């Protein structure tokens, strides 16, 4: 059973990474206990409206894509969880004006989640996370893009056991900042910022047989945007 789950988790991680696209990325989840370490992969669907900050004529201002990345989360104390994410790979998808047919993709990010209070089995946590990613266009279009996102959120978390497996529910308001720079030729980048940054998120995390974590979340920031992932808890 354990071997089968391990194979499924690995296959799911590979499948998620195979969906790699462009980036708006954050790693948010339930607070981990002191010394816990998770390594996993996440697939996120992103749908945001952007406005150009540079005063340039508006282009297609809807960003609609999916992205994937590898992440780790670790409980550095019983009240603080650090997270990081990184990925390098190839990407093809982009629905902005110019299509990146063949681009190299780089992503790095880090965050912190900390306990604010605990009351009657509920935990209230505060999380911040920042991510930067770059699409390096390898075609003669050389339309390169850099994405920067930052999130601040306050979450209420509830943990319980169901059929011997641990379930975590979380929900709360959040602020989702997203910025995009498009580099064309040798001019200054065209900057765009996502509108409707205020929203919220809700999610469920199931930790199966102590080590195997499956999670799903919905983020609302202008639109509902789902995200899924798997991880291994050491």
């Amino acid at each position, binding site marked *: 059973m354990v071997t089968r789950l391990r194979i499924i988790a690995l296959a799911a991680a590979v499948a998620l990474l195979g969906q790699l696209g462009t980036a708006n990325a954050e790693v948010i989840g339930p607070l981990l206990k*002191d*010394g816990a*370490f998770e*390594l996993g992969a996440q697939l996120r669907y992103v749908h945001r409206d952007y406005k150009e900050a540079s005063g340039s004529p508006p282009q297609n201002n809807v960003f609609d894509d999916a992205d994937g990345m*590898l992440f*780790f989360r*670790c409980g*550095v104390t019983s009240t603080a969880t*650090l997270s*990081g*994410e*990184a*990925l*390098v790979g190839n990407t093809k998808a982009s629905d902005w004006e110019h299509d990146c047919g063949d681009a*190299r993709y*780089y*992503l*790095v*990010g*880090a965050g912190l989640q900390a306990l604010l209070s605990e009351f009657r089995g509920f935990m209230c946590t505060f999380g911040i996370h920042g991510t*930067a990613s*770059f699409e*390096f*266009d*390898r*075609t*003669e279009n*050389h339309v*390169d893009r*850099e994405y920067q996102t930052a999130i601040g959120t306050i979450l209420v978390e509830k943990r319980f056991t169901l059929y011997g497996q641990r379930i975590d529910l979380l929900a709360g308001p959040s602020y989702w900042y997203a910025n995009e720079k498009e580099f064309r*030729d*040798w001019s200054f980048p065209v900057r765009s910022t996502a509108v409707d940054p205020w929203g919220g998120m809700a999610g469920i995390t199931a930790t199966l047989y102590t080590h195997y974590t499956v999670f799903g979340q919905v983020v609302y920031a202008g639109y509902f945007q789902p995200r899924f992932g798997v991880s291994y808890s*050491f």
Partner: protein
Amino acid sequence: MKKALTLVVLLLATSWVGASAQVIGPVLSKSSLELGYIYKWYHRDMEPNTPVEKDWEVASFFVRYGGTSRLTLSLEGGLWNVEHDDFPGMEFRRYTVGGGVGIRVLEVAGIGFSAFGHYNEVLDYDLSPPAFHKQTWGLNLGVLAEWSMTWKEQVLGIWGGPAYTLDESKNHAWNVRTFAYEDESATELGFVVGVNAVLWGRIVPSAHVVYADYFQGRIGIAGRWSPD
């Protein structure tokens, strides 16, 4: 004149290969976690383009975790705005991404033997008009012998062994993407030797030298969380 200028520019573009980075160290005990920062000096002979001798520096944040008593996983990443003396007035946006694994193979008479592998990739994106973008790939493979001693509850570790160190780079100029100057390290075989300390169970300063063509130093500092 224009040809000469282009040649000079492209030679300049190839004189700095960008960056590569590795996180190498002894295998950690089970459930031990290290979060740290490392700074690396590089000095390689790269071919076929001139100049052959190139040097560069890289900094990155890293995490290392002892998944089992024999397996250590590592990830590294960094995001910086960097400048270089060879390119006054230019500013590069640098993305550093990497990951690796260390596996304890056996332990004999207090000396641990492990194998390691680490891959990394760096993009130096030139934000200035010449658009001298640089990409680098690096691979480190090797075997380490690890020995440690404890003195007044502080731990000192010494480790070293043969290593295969491959660096490849692509240098772009003037935003031309279908052609790039590609270089590869001339000598891959060398060795790595290092020392690290675990102070009060929490603070891990480290230093190591990678020899491949030249001696290349790396220093780092990390925080450690360990159930031991």
